[in-house]
């Protein structure tokens, strides 16, 4: 069994939701990203989502946009992100999903990307701007290299689209909590429970909910309903505020620990 499936299985056995942490790779530097990944593992995070910085992130709110700008300014590239994963894998078994826009992967070459990502120790890939209809060229190379394709579904997805995502996808199904870009929101969507039920009906994969979840209270609410909770912008915003300093990893560990605790039902 691969690392992603195992992580969700362990969480289920422990009667809690899996905690998925998102950070932008290369923010503030790729060396710090490796430290942060270790810190997140110590905090008890189950899955790490690494954002590949892109110049035009249309699915992201201001927090992640600024993180991508910082990462690009520090010189982070897809090449560099894969090299960082390789270093991380020397002593870290945390499941890793790359969260990326299509263009850097296309430019890298899809087949070469899939081979290099698998060799580096990536477990899954999530494309923010490739819907099921356009997944054709990406699907084969990922599959041949045993990489899970993590599919996004949203409150606007029809039942047919959710099923297609369930068929194509691996690892877990990522349910976007509400229509919108990434970023903290004061409240959760009123339809969340219904949307989680719809995603469950469409697929046998574990369902993790993300976008807009930032506080331990929100995490606890979602953890009661879903198999996994994704927190991104809240952690990214913390990293942005601290900047490139030696205390960064410890601070992120403290911050993430509180969120992880909230996953226990």
């Amino acid at each position, binding site marked *: 069994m691969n690392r992603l499936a195992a992580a969700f299985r362990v969480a289920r056995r422990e009667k809690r939701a899996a905690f998925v942490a998102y950070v932008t790779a290369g923010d503030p530097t790729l060396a710090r990203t490796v430290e942060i990944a270790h810190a997140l593992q110590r905090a008890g995070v189950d899955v790490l989502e690494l954002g590949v910085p892109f110049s035009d992130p249309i699915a992201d709110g201001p927090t992640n946009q600024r993180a991508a700008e910082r990462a690009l300014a520090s010189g982070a590239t897809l090449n560099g992100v894969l090299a960082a994963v390789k270093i991380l894998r020397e002593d870290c078994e945390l499941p890793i999903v790359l969260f990326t826009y299509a263009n850097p992967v*296309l430019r890298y070459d899809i087949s070469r990307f899939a081979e290099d990502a698998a060799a580096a120790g990536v477990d899954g890939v999530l494309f923010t701007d490739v819907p099921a*209809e356009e997944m054709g060229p990406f699907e084969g190379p990922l599959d041949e290299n045993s990489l899970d394709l993590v599919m*996004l579904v949203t409150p606007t997805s029809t039942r047919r*689209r959710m099923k297609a995502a369930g068929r194509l996808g691996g690892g877990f199904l990522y349910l976007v909590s509400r229509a919108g870009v990434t970023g903290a929101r004061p409240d959760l969507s009123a339809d969340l429970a219904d949307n989680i039920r719809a995603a469950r009906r469409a697929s046998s994969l574990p369902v993790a909910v993300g976008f807009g979840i930032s506080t331990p209270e929100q995490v606890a609410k979602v953890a009661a309903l879903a198999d996994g909770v994704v927190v991104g912008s809240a952690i990214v915003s913390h990293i942005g505020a601290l900047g490139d300093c030696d205390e960064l990893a410890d601070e992120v560990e403290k911050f993430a620990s509180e969120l992880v605790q909230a996953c226990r039902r």
Partner: protein
Amino acid sequence: MKTLPDDRGYFGDYGGRFVPETLMAPLAELERAYRKASRDRAFQTRLDDLLRSYVGRPTPLYLARRLSAGLGGARIWLKREDLCHTGAHKINNALGQGLLACEMGKGRVIAETGAGQHGVAVATAAALLGLECRVYMGTEDMRRQELNVVRMGLMGAEVVPVEAGSRTLKDAINEALRDWVTNVSGTHYILGSVLGPHPYPMMVRDFQTVIGREALLQFRKAARTLPDMVVACVGGGSNAAGIFTAFVPHENVGLVGVEAGGRGLAPGEHAARFSGTGASGILHGTRTLVLQDDDGQILDTHSVSAGLDYPAVGPEHVQWQESGRVTYTNVDDEEAIAAFHVLAESEGIVPALESAHALAYAMKVAPAMPLATNVLVNLSGRGDKDLGEVGRVEREAP
């Protein structure tokens, strides 16, 4: 001939629908509404009436005699889209999509704008149709197209400054897409060029093909023949697609798209995607030719003309280029500004800096063409908006 795009929105290898999942539902809804409207006689009649009584169509075809005589070669004809209400061809599409928003029951429209011509057109359509309107515009473009910012405000549109990236058209589209993802249900995004996810490249082209249909008939009537060459500037490529489409089947008519050569072909200094520096990529929902670095990051662009200052190009243009039907070339800032002055002085017409790129190319090739030949230039917009910026550039020139 097979009509493109195919049912997945592809023009050959280019096009498609690369967007966040949230937008798949509204894009499907838009495509259904558009296909229904294009078969609906009442919709078409309403649009045609507005194009005639409100926009002022058909726009004239004008033979630029003094300009042509001064060049001493081919005769240069202008398709006067600058005489459209609001001063550019953008209104053709903005009204079509505005009506479509009403059909879909959406009370709010959003748009991006570079030169401000599309923003003004959308603000106009929104005022006419009673829609709430928000326009995203890069702060660099707000500075150099200040007149259009004032015009949008006058018509009740909210202009939202975009500070990200190069603070130009690309960044405005990013923000408009983010708004749409967040407000999908009650909002229609009126994209202004033949860009973006399917069905936009097809739909915007279709709303603009009125330019070429008129021009072809007018030209036949006036000159008893077809032009030897049709020239249009290409930012995203909507005025070019609008005039080219009718001429594409007439293979004796040469078609030339003119991109912004900016300050030269070094990275970041131009927007000439076809100059050999663009590579196949995905930007703003479509697979197309994109100015990008080796890591797939999108490059900044430069052009004196805000409307051409964009790193990607409409997917159908890439297909036209690969098939050899259309030739693409570029003209730099200085040549465009020179053409801007020549037209003003020889014909009393002040062109938009975008259109001045097409004109500059025509002026370059016309002298070497035989006297009996004809070059048709799509004069896509008027230049009032550019007076301040041209003055500034010329004051700062070394």
